[in-house]
């Protein structure tokens, strides 16, 4: 039986490699799971992938090679907006379905109807991203008035911050600090201090892992005072960073997509995570893989289920199916809507609680990252105001 080839580029080196390698492990687990069950349409599944080194310039060539030389049957995206978008022209020209992994509003320009984003940001990704954060804040009495928005100078963080800014304006909040910083900053104390000097009640931070660590540490050293602190910090979802920051994390409210809370134990997710934990050993990736890997598994599930449902590899039919079906995945029920985003947002706001010092194991179970928002998935109440 000729295998069904699924092709993609993945960031295995460079800036996004930490995510990319974790995603790859998840995708390989999916492949093995599927093949164990007899493959798709009775054909085994094979993954064909190349390292894009987190460089957009490599992506067009990789997809051209996948399609024209390797002759893959299906394609999915690499990890991250910058590495999804460069593939779009060739994908669109060949009219392929394109399940994508964590691009923020990547289809807003292209409006390609065969693009499907597994990240549960929602139909209005930029705004939905921080909606929960603001809803939580505005539910307090008295309502906070002053907000500081700070973000790293990169594509994801700026988009998140732009959403936060729009939300803040809509809610009539007074933006007292609104600045960006270079991703390669070494010391964050001047930034945190400048924020503090503006006396904000809410501090919304959007940035990548090393920035998050630096900001949280500086905030604790300086004794940052605010009522709500967090928002869009990537990195606080990762076990190694959680372990290192320990109690400094307590009471920070931050976005997430999946946490081991009882409200989110979808069928299959624990089995998947168990396999991931085994496969991740010695690979230098996140040991628990709560953040990206379930979604990397899920976007292939969406693809696989569509192939089974349409009984073929016709991209027109696959797309039609994806547009209307609801999929059962390890990250829950997935239904796509406008621009291929999730029909409704499921960007979680979680709050760190009772985090102990130097304990990795504590993050594998519930109770440390309480889901506050959205209501359907809520597992606890906000502790307000924020205190260190």
């Amino acid at each position: 039986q000729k295998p069904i080839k699924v092709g993609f580029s993945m960031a295995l080196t460079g800036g996004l490699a930490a995510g990319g390698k974790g995603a790859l492990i998840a995708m390989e687990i999916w492949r093995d799971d599927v093949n164990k069950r007899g493959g798709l349409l009775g054909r085994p599944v094979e993954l064909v992938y190349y390292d894009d080194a987190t460089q957009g310039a490599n992506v067009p060539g990789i997809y051209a090679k996948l399609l024209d030389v390797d002759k893959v049957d299906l394609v999915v995206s690499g990890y991250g907006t910058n590495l999804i978008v460069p593939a779009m022209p060739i994908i669109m020209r060949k009219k392929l379905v394109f399940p994508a992994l964590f691009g923020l509003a990547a289809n807003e320009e292209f409006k390609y109807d065969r693009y499907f984003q597994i990240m549960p940001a929602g139909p209005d990704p930029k705004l939905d991203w921080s909606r929960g954060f603001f809803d939580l804040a505005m539910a307090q009495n008295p309502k906070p008035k002053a907000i500081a928005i700070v973000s790293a100078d990169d594509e994801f963080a700026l988009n998140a911050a732009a959403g936060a800014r729009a939300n803040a304006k809509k809610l009539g909040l007074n933006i007292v600090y609104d600045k960006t910083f270079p991703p390669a900053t070494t010391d964050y104390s001047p930034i945190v201090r400048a924020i503090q000097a503006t006396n904000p009640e809410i501090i919304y931070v959007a940035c990548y892992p090393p920035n998050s660590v630096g900001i949280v540490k500086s905030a604790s050293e300086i004794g940052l005072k605010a009522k709500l602190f967090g928002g869009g910090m990537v990195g606080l979802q990762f076990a190694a960073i959680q372990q290192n920051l320990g109690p400094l994390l307590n009471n920070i409210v931050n976005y997430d997509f999946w946490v081991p809370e009882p409200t989110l134990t979808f069928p299959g997710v624990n089995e998947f995570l168990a396999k991931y934990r085994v496969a991740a050993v010695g690979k230098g990736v996140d040991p628990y893989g709560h953040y990206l890997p379930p979604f990397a598994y899920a976007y292939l599930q969406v693809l696989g289920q569509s192939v089974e449902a349409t009984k073929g590899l016709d991209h027109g039919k696959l797309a039609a199916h994806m547009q209307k079906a609801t999929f059962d995945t390890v990250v829950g029920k997935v239904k796509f809507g406008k621009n291929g985003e999730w029909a409704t947002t499921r960007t979680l706001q979680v709050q760190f609680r009772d985090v102990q010092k130097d304990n990795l194991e504590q993050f594998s179970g519930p109770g440390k990252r309480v889901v506050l928002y959205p209501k359907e998935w809520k597992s606890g109440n906000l502790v307000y105001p924020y205190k260190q």
Partner: protein
Amino acid sequence: MFSADLLANAVVAGVLLGGFYAAVAIGLAIVFGQLDIVNIAHPAFVIVGAFTAYILNSRFGFDPVLVGLLAAPVFFIAGVLLYRIYFIAFERTGQESLSGLAFFFGVMFIIEVSLIMAYGVDYRLVQADYIGRVWSIGFVDFPLRMLVPFSVSALLTAGIYLYLSRTFLGSAIQAVAQDRLALQLMGADPVRIKQWAFGLGIATAAIAGSLLIIIGPVEPSVGRQYIGRAFAIVVLGGMGSIPGMFIAALILGIVESMVSTFAGPSWSPAVAFGVLALTLALRPAGLFGRT
């Protein structure tokens, strides 16, 4: 938004940050400033130092600075070996230093990828009692997470400065790139002098790496961020001058910190490197340079 409190803290934060930059740059001040070897891979060695600190810290709970000191001799040997290769390929045939550039780019990639293959791409951090603690004098804060690297770096700089300026070997290191034959005529073996100095430069990377990981999380490719800064500091200081290097590092740190506090952090690279370019325009040989 301007206040004495902010200003004082911005200056202090800048000084501490600059002190750390000096630790990254000092190895280059020797290898690039004195030996004229364009070791682009130096920051990559710093990352290896950081990983060494991480490994020994997470396995055995060793203090990162201690690890840095312990690892320094091993790094020294690695530096000596690397220099041997460089020597055989370039200097023996009398090549100018520029051709080494591509070589060291290669070395940088090899180090980076070897680290990725061995330890993956996840961010690594260390634990130490002083991380997170703060000393305060009045309204000025000294986070130990920055103060410890600053102090270690200042000591390292002072030690290297004394060594280079007060010993015969130190003077020979300063001279070796200027005229090999002349140095031989002084009774010194240029190859061994360079080898020694190169080893010394790489050894400082062990310490700088341990300081880096005290400050923040490290993954294999973050070294790239420091290439520009480290070289800029050495050049701004005036190539061979160690005190110049230290002052240049402080200037860069203070400028970055001030811009971050009072303007927008986003502009700090432009302002810092703008200041650098301007300084060079006024003093074409850096602050303490010899033309």
